[in-house]
């Protein structure tokens, strides 16, 4: 700390440093330099700029580069007229670091909570026309990959009708893609991949998976996930790339698991209502859990794949389906064997449908 009070001035027009004295007149002041007098300036225009070593630097509103630099013990009557020292910036200085930290933590937690919880209420409010348009925009005709034969379509429709009370809202298709997977997309679209249908040993198995996807549609999971992702992208936008993406993915994953459980529950209920045995679905999951690795990694990518319903196949899910078997109930097969054959061979019969993904997906 300097022993003497010293004042320096730059006028902002040239780099000449001026040793001055401050002459205060009410709320205004002059800067006296030898024979020159600068001013008058108004104290209300003075702004705090920075602190250099033991020098406090002040600026003047609207005068570029104007500087008043004070070192040493500032007279109390002058200090009162000058703006306060700024350490962290507006809000933090006003509250103090401790209180500001608590306030920011609460605000951040609230923002995350809103983003995570609001999609559940917001998703049903999105008009179904928007949902449908989004689905159409995304999928279109799926690049001509949907398979269609009269008998196959009829068998598929029969399955859908037995599993859902409002089948007219749904658009279920089989796509000529050799992957063991199925997806629910916006606008009530459900796509079963041909690989999954071919793998299945009975129509009951396909019914279980289809009911699961319909569950995603009915619970509005796709729209929820979309809204949640968008919200998280905004809220975590300020966080550095990697850590933000990590948090985002972890949150999205936990919600995706919750959605899967809900969709499973929906599937079991729909199977029960349709009088279709869950045994097939359970054994289907059991078999797939061995093939799991390949089927799973593929759809954990970004973008569309990120909100496609993935199917983490686990023992617990299989057990849940086994548990839902009602003993002594007189289950009937989901399709007749003729219908099942038609559905299974639909993509083989339909030669017009394109296969694969347009590029090598394997």
């Amino acid at each position, binding site marked *: 700390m300097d022993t003497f009070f010293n004042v320096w001035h730059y006028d902002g027009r040239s780099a000449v440093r001026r040793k001055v004295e401050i002459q205060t007149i009410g709320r205004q002041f002059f800067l006296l330099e030898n024979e020159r007098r600068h001013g008058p300036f108004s104290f209300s225009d003075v702004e705090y700029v920075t602190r250099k070593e033991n020098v406090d630097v002040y600026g003047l509103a609207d005068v570029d580069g104007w500087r008043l630099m004070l070192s040493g013990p500032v007279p109390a009557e002058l200090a009162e007229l000058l703006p306060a020292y700024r350490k962290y910036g507006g809000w933090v200085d006003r509250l103090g*670091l401790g209180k500001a930290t608590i306030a*920011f*933590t609460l605000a951040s937690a609230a923002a995350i909570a809103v983003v995570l919880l609001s999609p559940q209420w917001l998703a049903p409010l999105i008009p179904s026309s928007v949902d449908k348009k989004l689905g159409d925009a995304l999928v279109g005709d799926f690049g001509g990959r949907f398979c269609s034969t009269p008998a196959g379509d009829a068998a598929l429709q029969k399955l859908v009708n037995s599993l859902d009370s409002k089948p007219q809202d749904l658009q279920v298709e089989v796509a000529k893609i050799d992957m063991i997977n199925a997806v629910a997309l916006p606008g009530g679209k459900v796509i079963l991949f041909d690989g999954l249908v071919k793998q299945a040993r009975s129509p009951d198995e396909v019914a279980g998976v289809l009911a699961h996807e319909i569950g995603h549609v009915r619970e509005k999971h796709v729209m929820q996930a979309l809204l949640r992702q968008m919200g998280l992208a905004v809220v975590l936008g300020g*966080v550095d790339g990697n850590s933000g993406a990590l948090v985002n993915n972890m949150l999205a994953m936990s919600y995706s698991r919750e959605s899967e459980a809900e969709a499973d529950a929906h599937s079991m209920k729909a199977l029960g209502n349709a009088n279709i045995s869950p045994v097939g679905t359970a054994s289907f999951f059991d078999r797939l859990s061995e093939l799991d690795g390949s089927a799973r990694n593929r759809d954990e990518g970004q973008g*569309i794949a990120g909100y496609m319903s993935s199917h983490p196949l686990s023992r617990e899910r299989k057990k849940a389906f086994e548990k839902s078997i009602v003993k002594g109930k007189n289950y009937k097969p989901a399709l007749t064997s003729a219908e099942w054959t038609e559905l299974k061979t639909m993509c083989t019969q339909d030669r017009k449908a394109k296969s694969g993904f*347009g590029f090598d997906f394997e």
Partner: protein
Amino acid sequence: MSEDLTQRHSAFRFHGSWQEFAKIAFPNLLLSIVTLGIYRFWATTREREYLWAQTDFIDERLEWTGKGMELFIGFIMVFLLLGLPFIVIQLISQGLIFRGETVLAGVITLLMFLLLFYLTGVAYFRALRYRLSRTYWRGIRGGSNDPGFGYGLSYMWKSFVGWLPIFLLVPWSMISLWNERWNAMSFGPHRFEANADWKPLMKRYLLFYLVPFLLVAGLITVAIVAAASGDQLGAIGGAGMAVGGIIVVLAILSLYIILPLAALAFYSKYFRLAVGGLRLHNLEFDFRARAPDWILFFLANMAIVICTLGIGYIFMPYRNWKFFVDHMEAYGEINIDELTQSKTIVSKHGEGLLDAFDVGAI
């Protein structure tokens, strides 16, 4: 009044201490975490205020007058103008892949990439402009009236020409872009002149460029020798195998050690040449750090980050600035009376673009 620099030891001196910086960096880290990263714009500003204020140029400290809010606004602008449209474009192109329009999706992705590339160039330019316009010395600041859109085009074509002859003209593109960038900048009434020559850089570049080839060639030579001696050592058994194993380990290690060393040696020369070619009116600049200085600097940085389990990362801005100032030198003289205020425009937003792309300074 004029300042003769030739008499002085160094025109630039840094007076900061890491203990003082820690008192800024730790609260910054805390506040950045509890605000989900939003505080980091104010954090950067506080760090720069400290670093600039601790930097002497001749007889006066520098001043950083940038505001956290400016950086925040820049970030928001990028998010709205670029982030959101890019998310939408990505969705569209994925939708196109779904529909089998792979070519169209590819074209859109390519255009997106080109636009990003262009904007990266603009961002480099604008960040330098922003930093100069917020840096004051004796009440005088720098800046540029060029918005940098033309520089973005130069950045594209010069980088492309640099890569075209199997990356051999990269030194030319780096130096040429540096010169173009700095020639558009000014401080006070004076324009910077940047006339760095790229040819002296080629030797170092070729060293870096050829390291992988030399290593492979060396490896093959050693392997042949080892194989020849292995024949003779056949009686001793696995010794030849062991030698081979050691050679592979050495080769991998040397690739990880020699390549970064060669890169640093190149960058050291680049920065020395680039700064050495810079003039401001009667001032000439020099950067005295040589390759060993850079290597020690990076090893120390790595050691600090690793030994503190990553926390030391928050000291990197301090380390970088100190390294920069400690090795900067200026010669010539400044006429203080002639050094009048810059007439360049001052943009109200900060380094948004640069911040979004996460590219470095100067």
